[in-house]
């Protein structure tokens, strides 16, 4: 049965009179802070490179082994922490992950050489931060929100952006004033002293753990018939591996692989491209500042729209808009292209994350969501790692980024078309009524 999402949602449990803010928004606030600290600390790594070079007498390339290792370890960790989330509940995983990350972050203050940095940052912190990533946090949010899943995911994802804006300058100035050891001790200590207790006190894996329903609704039915969380989606498979034989997970993963290709390549190669176009570092930085501002608004706008319109259409449009941004890089003159990219690219930069996470939850349900979205996230990270290498190789070979940017645009058009072909009205819980027998969640992972 299919139809308008609002009609289906109205057919669900009746709304209780509104009284206070729905507790799910507090869960988002706590996860927002955890994401904020975790991503901010990881991004802050770059601030210390010059200091470590001087203190340890090593090259940037040597220190970069820790960053490269961390990239891969973080990508590979996603399906594992996702699976752990499905088995043990999101709260346990996110609390333990932030705890390990906080202690390891403080441990960096004791590191005296690059090997210790590779061990702590490249492996421990990067693996643990997988537990404070969308692979885990989106599972919790998907259990608390269904009607407003898109905007809820968007608010959560923006936590990483805010973390970068606050934590990176904080670390930088602590480095200047007190030294790098104090900077790592302080950010790890703040995560330990405030982040971990906040998660423990506020976050619950399921609304049922607080005696609530999904979206804050209460049913007038008997307790036994209450719908806590619809754990399954129309394409739900009891074993997560069976989901891999369905089409939507591959459509989402292939598109997200392209997302990884295009964001990672720009992240690493944008400066070199700007230099090759005789654009100053300062202009490049300012252009990215513009991109950031548009991006922050864009992700929230997309989140709001995605709760009203078909998410696959928005996802397709987002990829196509990013394709236009890539095309501008090799079609327009450099000084114009950089601003065109900032404005057009900014609208699409982070918007793929809440859309992909929400669609995965809508199609497959929340019971295996951690594993499945972890799988999709791994595709994103592997695509990024491959693109970083191949873009560099192409620039070395041809002395220009035109060909890699053109390839990026082609892959984005393909990702857009693949996203548009997802049959959301046939596969999404927003449009297809899930059988009643499958509607009651057993809160085995409630904690």
């Amino acid at each position, binding site marked *: 049965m299919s139809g308008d999402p609002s009609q289906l949602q109205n057919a669900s449990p009746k709304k209780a009179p509104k009284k*206070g803010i729905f*507790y799910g928004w*507090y869960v988002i*606030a*706590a996860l927002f*802070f955890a994401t904020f600290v*975790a991503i901010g600390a*990881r*991004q802050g*790594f*770059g*601030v*210390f490179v*010059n200091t470590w070079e001087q203190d340890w007498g090593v090259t940037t*390339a040597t220190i*970069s*082994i820790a*960053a490269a290792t961390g990239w891969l370890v*973080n990508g590979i960790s996603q399906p594992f922490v996702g699976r752990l989330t499905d088995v043990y509940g999101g709260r346990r995983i996110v609390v333990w992950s932030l705890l390990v990350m906080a202690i390891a972050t403080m441990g960096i203050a004791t590191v005296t050489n690059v090997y210790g940095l590779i061990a702590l940052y490249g492996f421990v912190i990067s693996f643990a931060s997988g537990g404070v*990533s969308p692979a885990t946090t989106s599972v919790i949010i998907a259990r608390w929100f269904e009607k407003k899943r898109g905007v809820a995911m968007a608010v959560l994802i923006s936590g*990483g952006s*805010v973390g*970068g804006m*606050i934590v*990176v*300058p*904080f670390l*930088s*100035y*602590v480095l*200047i*004033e007190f030294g790098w050891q104090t900077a790592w001790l302080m950010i790890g200590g*703040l995560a330990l002293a*405030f982040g971990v207790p*906040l998660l423990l006190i*506020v976050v619950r894996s399921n609304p049922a753990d*607080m005696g609530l329903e999904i979206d804050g609704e209460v049913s007038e039915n008997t307790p036994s018939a209450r719908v806590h969380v619809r754990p399954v989606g129309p394409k739900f498979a009891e074993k997560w591996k069976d989901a891999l034989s369905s089409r939507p997970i591959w459509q989402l993963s292939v598109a997200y692989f392209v*997302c*990884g290709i295009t*964001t*990672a390549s*720009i*992240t*690493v190669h*944008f*400066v070199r491209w700007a230099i090759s176009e005789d654009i100053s*570092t300062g202009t*490049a930085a300012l252009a*990215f500042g513009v*991109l*950031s501002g548009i991006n*922050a608004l864009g992700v929230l706008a997309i989140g709001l729209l995605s709760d009203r319109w078909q998410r696959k259409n928005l996802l397709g449009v987002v990829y196509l808009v990013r394709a236009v941004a890539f095309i501008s890089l090799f079609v327009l003159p450099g000084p114009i292209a950089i601003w065109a990219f900032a404005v057009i690219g900014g609208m699409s*930069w*982070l918007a793929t994350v809440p859309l992909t996470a929400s669609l995965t939850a809508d199609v497959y349900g929340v019971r295996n969501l951690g594993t499945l979205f972890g799988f999709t996230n791994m595709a994103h990270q592997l695509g*990024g*790692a491959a693109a*970083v*290498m191949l*873009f*560099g190789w192409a620039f070395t070979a041809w002395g220009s980024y035109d060909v890699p940017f053109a390839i990026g645009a082609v892959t984005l058009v393909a990702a857009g078309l693949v996203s548009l072909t997802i049959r959301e009205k046939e596969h999404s819980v927003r449009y297809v009524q899930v059988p009643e027998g499958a509607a009651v969640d057993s809160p085995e992972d409630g904690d």
Partner: protein
Amino acid sequence: MCRCPRALLWIHQRMVIEMAVPFGVPAVPVLHASEPIDPTLWAWLSDKIDHVLGLSPGMVIAILGTFIVLFPIVVMVMVWRRRGEMGR
């Protein structure tokens, strides 16, 4: 000679070379998967911030640190009040 170790060595070298300089762009808020910020561009950005705001490092630390500490405290207080209303 087996080609696998050579292929792995090539991948490793590319990873190190490509991620060496820069680590990432200045795009602190737009980094997509928590990649480290580019140190050179961060130096440029922090100079600009200093120029525009004109605050001492200690003042910036105090302002940002206060935000980082207050955010979780405010959330916890709001949750305690909410739980009180909910009777839990």
